[in-house]
């Protein structure tokens, strides 16, 4: 009983501290930037604007995809709580970054949706919050870094989670050079959390798998997007080889009863390439069950 409680308390702590900390995650390697800056005259709006695709992670972080020095794409979180572009050491290495003694380097940053910043400084450090979340797979995908002030300040950015893209407007502004405090830890001593989560996660049976696989192809066209009725079977497709026909109504996928188009898509979207799928259809008065080996394509 004792060690259960021990784990529970640590876990609860982590559970609270991780979202909390991820908020502050940023100061992770960044620490406080000493150099004060003057804003000068207000920047002109440069006419370029971009629709930047984003997604919300399971942890409610705003995630965009970026390329650094042409490598990637990587998953980065938009973070006004971060002073700079910050990436994991592994990503910095992949991007072949030349780092100075404070772990800053210069990067060519591209953001999905067309944003292109030819030269920007970025910090290479393993943020404990990302390390912890990745160890537990909490975000639902692997996180590689954050976009902070020196990137975000060059744009006016509109967030609206009822849309699937963010609206970025380029401003004529360059953030001042960033400097890193030397040797001063500003997380208030939380850096150990990343390693703790990394240690505990596997003990709790958490081995996140970020791998993805394409769905397999059937070769079936439907009679409308709310329908479970086959409109056409593509020639030489897996469905055609299994002798499915126009007008067949799909009743079961892998023995799961289909009541609506929503059910159909749900089960269809769990089938990978080359998988053998049992499908039951209604054809006139008769029920017919076939096995389809899925192909490739979409």
């Amino acid at each position, binding site marked *: 009983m004792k060690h259960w409680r021990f784990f529970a308390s640590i876990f*609860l702590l982590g559970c609270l501290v991780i979202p909390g900390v*991820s908020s502050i995650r940023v100061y992770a390697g960044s620490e406080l930037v000493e150099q004060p800056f003057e804003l000068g005259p207000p920047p002109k709006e440069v006419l370029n604007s971009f629709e930047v695709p984003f997604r919300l992670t*399971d942890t409610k*972080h705003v995630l965009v995809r970026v390329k650094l020095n042409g490598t990637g794409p990587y998953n980065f979180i938009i973070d006004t709580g971060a002073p700079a572009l910050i990436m994991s050491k592994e990503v910095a290495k992949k991007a072949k970054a030349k780092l100075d003694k404070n772990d800053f380097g210069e990067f060519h940053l591209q953001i999905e949706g067309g944003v292109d910043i030819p030269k920007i400084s970025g910090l290479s450090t393993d943020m404990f919050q990302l390390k912890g979340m990745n160890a537990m797979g909490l975000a*639902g995908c692997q996180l590689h870094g954050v976009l902070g002030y020196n990137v975000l300040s060059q744009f006016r950015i509109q967030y609206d989670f009822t849309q699937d893209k963010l609206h970025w407007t380029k401003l004529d502004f360059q953030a001042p050079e960033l400097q890193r405090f030397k040797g001063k830890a500003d997380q208030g001593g939380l850096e150990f959390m990343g390693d703790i989560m990394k240690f505990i996660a596997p003990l*709790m049976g*958490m081995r996140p798998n970020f791998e993805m696989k394409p*769905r397999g192809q059937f070769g079936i066209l439907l009679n409308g997007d709310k329908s479970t009725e086959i409109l056409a079977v593509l020639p030489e497709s897996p469905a055609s080889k299994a002798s499915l026909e126009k007008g067949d109504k799909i009743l079961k996928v892998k023995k799961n009863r289909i009541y609506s188009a929503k059910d159909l898509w749900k089960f269809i979207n769990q089938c990978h390439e080359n998988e053998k799928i049992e499908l039951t259809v209604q054809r006139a008065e008769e029920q017919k069950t076939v096995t389809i080996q899925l192909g490739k394509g979409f």
Partner: protein
Amino acid sequence: MRLVIALLSCLFLTSNIFGKDPKNNPSSESEKETPSIVPFILLPSGHFLVNVKLNDKGPYQLIFDTGAPTLLLNNRIAKDSGIMKKQKGSMFSPFGPMGQVKIASLQIGEVISKNIPAVVVDHPTVNAFSQYYKKKYGPIDGIVGFPFFAKFKMTVDYQAKQLTFIPNNYKPTDVMESMMNAIMGASKNNKPKIVAATGYWGLKVTKATKDDSEGVDVSFVVPDSPAAKAGIKVGDRLLTIDGRWTDSETDTYHAAGLVQVGKTVPVEILRNKVKSNLKVTPIPGF
């Protein structure tokens, strides 16, 4: 063991959130359609502060952070605003008493939002920040994050040093709930995730293992398919679908998975070293 842990944490959550389901009308959000402008204080480190009133008490100075999945309040302002004392079942921790609370009314500038979940904790990083900036800017007592700003169409303008808010009726889900799901589902999620297009395109794409330049190769186009009708040809390099990169097979499926069936979207291809934009309308099928 995970089950025990999850149960314990459920208990912990229950006593705090579900047991205290707010009775007041949740639809009383600020219904204004005109944008509300909120100025902020930009710190030399590039972070910014906003003044926040909690249940009409305050204002308190909090860091505004799009990377924060929750709101954090320290114990001082949680007590001062009366949020914490109603709260039973807070737990002792190295970071002061901790607990989940709901803020009945949170006001930033003219913008008022109701029933915002928050976590009360004396977070060491916030403390460190507060210590560092206290002299010049006054104390910093927490962080404003996702549960607040998700309810608005929000614009961040660092140059004008202001935030703009228009209510958008988005209902953010609770991050703690998502976390519980993630933790309970963790072992089930060991299988690779399957990514799928929402509709039928008539395309096959490939990418050689050593090929690390942008895009994927189109290896087959089904005659008369939506892809064929758009003018995509075998040998084209597919670069983006609706503005999303297609740098791997799974990337391509993911991008096609975000296109509504029947909606026409731009597709960027490279053919004979020339980039061009085509338009594809996927149809219902798989």
